[in-house]
């Protein structure tokens, strides 16, 4: 028994003298509790609803008033007026808006004539949380329209809502795939980049580089590009295997594969640049391991990979704005679930490139050429 106590004493004494291990092991669950707690199940708000009103009659004005009431009250969506339905649909396909509410030219006439008036909601169904929320709210709006008005004498037109989904049904496994690809890139960045980098540094291997005439930028660029290649390999494998598992339609379309590859490369470069910026002054091999889980939680869940960002509290939305995962996940969703072109993801790519340039420049500035 004394020998068992000796083992227990040894382990507990070592644990007590590793404050970082204690702190990180306690911070991680707290971060997970807060982030995951707020990441799921929040009410989706501020969706973008395009309104194409082709009618000028009083009933159509009433529909718009009711939409305005939602914007001001429950704030489930904000409306954006479109004069041209084609432009609105293109914005919908490019992911700039979440749905298009079309009031046809004969809507008011049909309301007054009791002739089956209809309005149409064309929605982006790649995010089932968003589309369900939008459809439910607009259905409620139409229901309110059909209710007898207490202050005006008006005959209700029994309007009906036609909901049109732009894309084929998107199961949740497909919805998760973009986030999983980004996660596979991040894992390789951390394990194949960050952890090996710090271990080599701690082992003295970097002294071998520092005594050569290599410039700081050359060294950082070398680490970043090699890390990018490793992460691209990981992301590409997950993209192909994941597409097959999730049943992405036409997974081997050459043009889409090419676009996906570009996004994987830019994502990998952005994440490895971020990782080197975090690790540039670190020497303790424990640190990258300790922050791995925290960083993963803080980047993955606010990105919209598992739940729409419109359901997050403001502080989590603020994280999402700077989080490179957000832009990668959005770009992968556009390409995998909507089969869009570069036009729909140009903003994402631009952000990731600027992010990479800033992170790499800062890492170069902070890198010490001496021990």
């Amino acid at each position: 028994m004394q020998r068992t106590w000796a083992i227990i004493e040894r382990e507990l004494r070592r644990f007590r003298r590793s404050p970082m291990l204690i702190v990180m092991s306690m911070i991680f669950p707290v971060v997970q509790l807060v982030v995951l707690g707020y990441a799921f199940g929040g009410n989706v708000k501020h969706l973008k609803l395009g309104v194409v009103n082709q009618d000028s009659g009083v009933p159509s004005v009433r529909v718009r008033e009711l939409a305005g009431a939602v914007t001001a009250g429950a704030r489930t969506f904000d409306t954006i007026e479109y004069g041209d339905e084609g432009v609105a649909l293109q914005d919908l396909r490019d992911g700039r808006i979440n749905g298009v509410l079309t009031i046809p030219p004969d809507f008011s006439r049909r309301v007054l004539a009791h002739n089956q008036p209809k309005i149409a909601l064309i929605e982006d169904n790649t995010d089932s949380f968003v589309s369900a929320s939008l459809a439910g709210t607009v259905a409620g709006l139409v229901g309110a329209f059909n209710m007898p008005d207490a202050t005006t004498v008006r005959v209700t037109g029994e309007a009906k809502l036609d909901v049109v989904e732009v894309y084929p049904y998107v199961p949740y496994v497909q919805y998760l795939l973009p986030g999983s690809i980004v996660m596979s890139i991040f894992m390789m960045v951390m394990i194949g980049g960050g952890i090996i980098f710090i271990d080599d540094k701690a082992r003295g291997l970097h002294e071998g580089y520092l005594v050569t005439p290599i410039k700081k930028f050359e060294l950082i660029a070398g680490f970043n590009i090699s890390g990018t290649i490793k992460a691209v390999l990981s992301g590409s494998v997950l993209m192909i295997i994941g597409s097959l598992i999730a049943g992405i339609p036409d997974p081997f379309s050459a043009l889409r594969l090419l676009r996906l590859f570009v996004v994987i490369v830019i994502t990998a470069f952005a994440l490895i640049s971020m990782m080197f910026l975090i690790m540039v002054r670190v020497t303790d091999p424990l640190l990258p391991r300790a922050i791995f889980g925290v960083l993963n939680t803080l980047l993955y869940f606010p990105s919209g990979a598992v739940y729409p960002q419109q359901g997050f509290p403001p502080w989590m939305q603020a994280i999402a704005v700077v989080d490179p995962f957000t832009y990668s996940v959005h770009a992968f969703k556009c390409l995998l679930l909507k089969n869009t072109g570069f036009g729909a993801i140009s903003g994402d790519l631009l952000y990731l490139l600027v992010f990479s340039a800033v992170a790499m420049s800062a890492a170069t500035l902070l890198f010490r050429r001496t021990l």
Partner: protein
Amino acid sequence: MIAIDVRNIVKQFGKFVAVNGISFTVEAGEIFGLLGPNGAGKSTLIRMLTTLLPPTSGTALVNGFDVLKQSDDVRRAIGVIPQAMTSDLELSVEENLVIYAKLYSVPREKRIRLMKELLAAVELTEWKDKQVKNLSGGMRRRVEIARGLMHEPRIFFLDEPTTGLDPVSRVAVWEMLKRIKAQRDLTILITTHYMDEADKLCDRIAIVDHGELKALDSPLKLKASIPGKNVLEASFGSPPADWERTLVALPGVEGVTGKDNVYRINSTNGPATTLALMEAAERAGAQVQSLGVQSTSLDDVFVHYTGRALRDALQEPSAQDSPFMIRRG
């Protein structure tokens, strides 16, 4: 021609002075040894000379270039073998050499020629395709020696290159270094705490302790600089009370230290002192239990200049001490 010129160099970490105003020069073509106990400041000194640490004050010129102001020129002129084994374990011997040559922009044809020459010099030609992780410690050190020479440096720094190697591997490393130096226009600066290594390898030795230069000369002159040419170590059974005074009075004796009837006698004339010692012991009835005579070694020189005190001191925890590091090889 002077290869390394160090003037009053100081390195301070907070309040701790690791190197305190050391000055010396190393002639081109010399093998120069920095000898000192652990924590003496040897590695800090070599790190300043190889541009890894900026000096707090003082100057150091390496191949004529200032380590602080012309660090890139210094880096081009030097090859460095750090204390830690730094070859990439997953790469082959050949890949390790090629990648380092590329860091110095060595042209392809020259790379191929140098690799062939150096692999032959360190006797690793037949192992060139093997991953370094499959090699023994001595072989890894030889890989690093070859790697450090792939850009034909003028000055070669080796920080405790044989620490942790078995005696056969150590001797092999010494012989290779001597052979390589004979074939090339090379100056070598080596730090070590092995006296035999410094004795057999170095043209001149600087003894460093507590960050200060205690002595600098050739091994022969250093040995001559301390009292006694021979050291006699003798133990006696029940010697008289004034026995130490008797020993000091023997011919050729320059100094005596003793404890528990075991005496260490420094002598300028070993044979004469030995003879007189035997006679004196017989006269005094002190039975000679053991007697050994040896020439003055660098160990004696080292102890003379640095003392016998243990260098116990607290140190900052090293990242290498972390239990979380991935152990490779």
